[in-house]
């Protein structure tokens, strides 16, 4: 029987192939390389990657060589009816629409006992769920399912993995949330995010390293602005705190982030800060991987000590759902 001849290559030949392939990619999708570089964590690696890819992307863009790629992608996504590029890390590289003016946190004010909000219209309650990976699965999917099953409630969920408020160059939540709330009237917005924000803030040519006073001022301003946006446009805003984290240092950082959102909620009568640690933590509200529920040990946190397991998501979702039903009083069909 005749067998096909497998060609043997030399290293030099493979090097030529890989070199030509790399050149073609740079020629036709330099913007993709630049977007990848800008999505890297702030640091020397990102600086080097951007220093190389940005000028190339600029030249390639001016020459119009990126256009075929972008047109093809646009056509493909519309042909297959995939929204927002599908997938996990949606990168929409747009400049932030909000002004960056670091401001000092304001003095404490008491959290109102009753959540204020516009009158509830005689129609099913509309709830928007937004956030990072914590809203992506576990909590997000369980909460979406619970709300969708209620005949007097409607729900929409939008989660973007690895997103937060420090990197609008990676994902601009102000822009997206504003757009979603303009598209449709909601009675409540439930949000959880902040876990990806332990990184430097770069704005208007200045970089504020995480942990500095400037960073906290800048982040507190963003937190306040974002809560204000949700509460003013979304009827009622429910800000779910990041759950307690296993890593002590990370937990301390997320605790401070939570405090800034709590402060933001205090200033808005229609915003409510919800401490998730009371439901997903141990008796003291601290991190635990396991909870005893109905006499059974259930693992509630994923192996990374950050995310929730399906069981953990269901527990938290049921508590949030109860709260929403109580506050929104959805009509019977």
């Amino acid at each position, binding site marked *: 029987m005749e067998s096909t001849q497998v060609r043997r290559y030399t290293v030099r030949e493979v090097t030529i192939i890989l070199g030509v392939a790399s050149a073609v990619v740079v020629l*036709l999708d330099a913007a993709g390389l630049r977007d990848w570089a800008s999505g890297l964590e702030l640091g020397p690696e990102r600086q080097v990657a951007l220093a190389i890819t940005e000028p190339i992307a600029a030249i390639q863009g001016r020459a119009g060589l990126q256009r075929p790629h972008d047109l093809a992608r646009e056509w493909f996504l519309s042909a297959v009816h*995939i929204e927002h590029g599908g997938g996990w890390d*949606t990168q929409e590289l747009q400049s932030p629409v909000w002004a960056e003016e670091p401001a000092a946190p304001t003095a404490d004010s008491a959290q109102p006992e009753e959540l204020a909000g516009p009158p509830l219209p005689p129609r099913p309650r509309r709830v928007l769920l937004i956030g990072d990976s914590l809203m992506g699965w576990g909590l997000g999917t369980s909460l979406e399912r619970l709300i969708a099953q209620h005949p007097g409630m409607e729900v929409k969920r939008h989660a973007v993995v690895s997103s937060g408020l420090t990197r609008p160059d990676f994902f601009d939540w102000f822009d997206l949330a504003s757009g979603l709330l303009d598209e449709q009237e909601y009675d409540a917005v439930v949000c959880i995010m902040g876990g990806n924000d332990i990184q430097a803030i770069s704005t208007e040519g200045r970089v504020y390293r995480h942990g500095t006073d400037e960073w906290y001022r800048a982040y507190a301003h963003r937190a306040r602005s974002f809560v204000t946006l949700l509460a003013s446009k979304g009827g009622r805003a429910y800000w779910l705190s990041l759950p307690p984290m296993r890593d002590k240092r990370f937990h301390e950082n997320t605790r401070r982030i939570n405090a800034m959102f709590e402060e933001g909620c205090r200033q808005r009568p229609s915003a409510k800060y919800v401490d998730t640690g009371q439901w997903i933590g141990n008796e003291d509200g601290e991190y635990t991987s396991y909870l005893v529920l109905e006499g059974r*040990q259930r693992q509630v946190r994923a192996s*990374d000590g950050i995310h929730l397991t399906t069981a953990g998501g269901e527990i938290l979702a049921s508590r949030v759902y109860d709260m929403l039903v109580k506050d929104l009083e959805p009509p019977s069909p």
Partner: protein
Amino acid sequence: MLFPTIQFGVFFLIVFVGSWALRSRHTAHKWFLIAASYYFYGCWDWRFTALLAFCSVSNYLGGRWLAATEHPGRRKAILLVGLLANGGVLGFFKYYGFFVSSALNVFAAMGWRPNVTLLEVVLPVGISFFTFQGISYFVDVYRRQLEASKSLADILLYISFFPQLVAGPIVRASTFLPQLQKPPDPNTIEGSRALTLIMGGLIKKTVVANYIGTELVDPFFQSPSDYSGPDSLFAIYGWAVQVYCDFSAYSDIAIGVAELLGYRFPHNFNQPYRASSLREYWRRWHISLSTWLRDYIYYPLGGSRAGRLRTYVNLYLVFLFGGLWHGADWTFVMWGLVHGTGLCVERFVRRRMPAREWPRWTYIIGLLATFHFVCVARIFFRSPSFDIALQCFRSLGAWSEPLTMATPFVVVLVVVGLGIHFIPPKWSEAAQTAFGRMPLVAQGAALGLFLVLLSVMAPEGVAPFIYFQF
């Protein structure tokens, strides 16, 4: 660091150039690959590079110890220590929470609630793969099928070599270590095979598996009771395609990348859904795991030579182990038991009706039955709990509702994912040959255009490979 990312592309180009540049200095070449592999692994969590080194060094020392010992009793004792060391690492990191919480639940059911503080154990990525490689080396040395390596670098590289480190294939020491005896040959790279495997793997993962996952499988398994019978069936077919395209993609890319660096890995998949029996299916699916379980568990238990009843028990034990290997959860145990039962029943039937007496058309029946059996078992594999699995089965019975999830794009992906199982192997060889006959610059341009096309079609971001969790 995931294969279908620019980060990996840059990393690979550096490793490719560096490793071949150091080829003439063999020891430096190996240490360079070790450093690259530890960097690759450290991108997930630097802390676990120490665990990787511990497993490698302990297997190296154990192997040397075995080589220096002739007394059969002592050799057995050393083997036991080696197995406990490898198994202990795997057991602690992967199964601690599962077994302790299961035991506490049993105690609670009996009315006893011991006050136990559960440790927080983080699962290192790829631990099931590199501990199995360590065990295979140790056992092969014990069986004198392989000479204990005198080179620590060889064992470090064997356990950590980055193409197969986190999701296989489970390369045997007897396959890989001999390749480290001399520098890789720079003139015999099967470049067209390697590049077509990499390209095929990239499209299977980034387009087929990822879109089927996000558009069909993930929504269904989040809440199966919300879907109709036709939707459920379609999603379960989709899951079969997704898991094949995801896992075989990793293996294909790993094999291709290793080939470009001058090393040969064995095949891990051979069109599994064209199998007409479960036995054949396991010879085509995750071949490196199937053969590992056969050689290191099934045969030592006596295989099929210890009597009929014992053969059935052995099959069950192997698949119970195989289920637990995939994940520390009762749903994986159930998946293993379902497969064990299927193989026992099949073996029983075949003993009474040998396959050679069956008419040819029964191949189609066998193929359909095998595929659907695998799909049903995989419901347990994918479901996060028995409750969700039961919802899937209930939804499968609700045929009064219409099919809503079958968008043309997803249908095409599922059909393509199944269709590639029936492409004659000659075709892929012909494609490799045709690619290899093009001028080098044309091959590079074709590869570059393929990568651009991939970025046109791929979803934003890349989900981790499914088998990373194992």
